[in-house]
């Protein structure tokens, strides 16, 4: 019998949180730029939001991040959801991957929005969360009457995966 060896990489929840936070923040920035929605506030609050999302993913309280586009006539559409699915430690994907090429193709299909459209970021939770600066209670806009389109898995990491759903 020939000798064998194995290599085991140990990744932390912090790394998973860092990775998925980057993917969701970068995706939101690209979507807003694509829709020509002003990103001044997103850029201004980046560090604060980045820290909050990473903390909530690491403690596994974050259920999903929701990007709502508020049009000048009061319509809230599109709405883009980023659900996080947590996996039992060690049972998830052993690598950090993101399907950015597919995302770029998908973004091209997003419906345009009128000038003056603004956005809101809302997080929903699956369990108690730690308080984070700059975040307070909010109410989601209704999704009634919107058509849902699944993008599928956007990014995968050892302890969780991030997917995307587009409602328009």
């Amino acid at each position, binding site marked *: 019998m020939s000798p064998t060896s194995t290599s085991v*990489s140990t*990744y932390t929840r912090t*790394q*998973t949180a*860092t*990775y998925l*936070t*980057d*993917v969701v*923040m*970068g*995706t939101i*920035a*690209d979507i807003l*730029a*694509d829709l020509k929605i002003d*990103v001044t506030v*997103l*850029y*201004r609050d*980046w*560090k604060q939001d*980045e820290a909050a999302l*990473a903390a909530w993913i690491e403690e596994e309280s974050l259920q999903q991040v929701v990007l709502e586009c508020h049009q000048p006539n009061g319509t809230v559409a599109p709405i883009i959801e980023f659900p996080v699915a947590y996996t039992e430690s060690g049972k998830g994907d052993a*690598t*950090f*991957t*993101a399907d*950015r090429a597919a995302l*770029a193709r998908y*973004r091209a299909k997003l419906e345009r929005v009128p000038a003056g459209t603004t956005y809101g970021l809302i997080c929903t939770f699956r369990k108690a969360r730690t308080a984070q600066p700059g975040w307070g209670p909010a109410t989601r806009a209704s999704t009634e009457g919107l058509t849902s389109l699944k993008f599928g898995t956007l990014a995968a*990491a050892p302890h969780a995966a991030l997917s995307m759903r587009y409602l328009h």
Partner: protein
Amino acid sequence: MQRHRQVAAAPKRRASDTWDAIAELVGATLDRSPHIAASDVTAEMESASAIGRALVAAGHLDKYAVVVVADPIYLNITTVSGSAATDLDEDLGPVPGGATATGWTVFLPTPDPVGDAVRTAVAGLPHFSADEPPGETMTKSASSEEANALNLDALAQRAQERM
């Protein structure tokens, strides 16, 4: 002199920390010059941090480099994201050549869909540009440019000979 540095992004660093690492690399390199004030470099890199973080987080800098031109330095900086970032062998020390640099410009890439955001972000920054960076030969002497012209002529002549 053409140099390339890779900076580990997520999951090793958050986007904001990655941009800070890039800023420190640029700052440490240019700080060696007596003609460039480190405080100016730090201030401008900080002013560009908002768009820098967005470029990092979306993975744009994995594909398109930030280019620092400070003759004789021509430095390409890219990021590495995903699994490869966890065991990347980084070299974030100052790039040689900074001591003789007299001016500097950081060229940011303008990939879709954030090209307009990049152009807006750098508009008021004297040492940043959203233009195509010059070819490295343009930062060298006239003799190099003449050599390039000769090479192009030779290529054109060779193409004609083949027709």
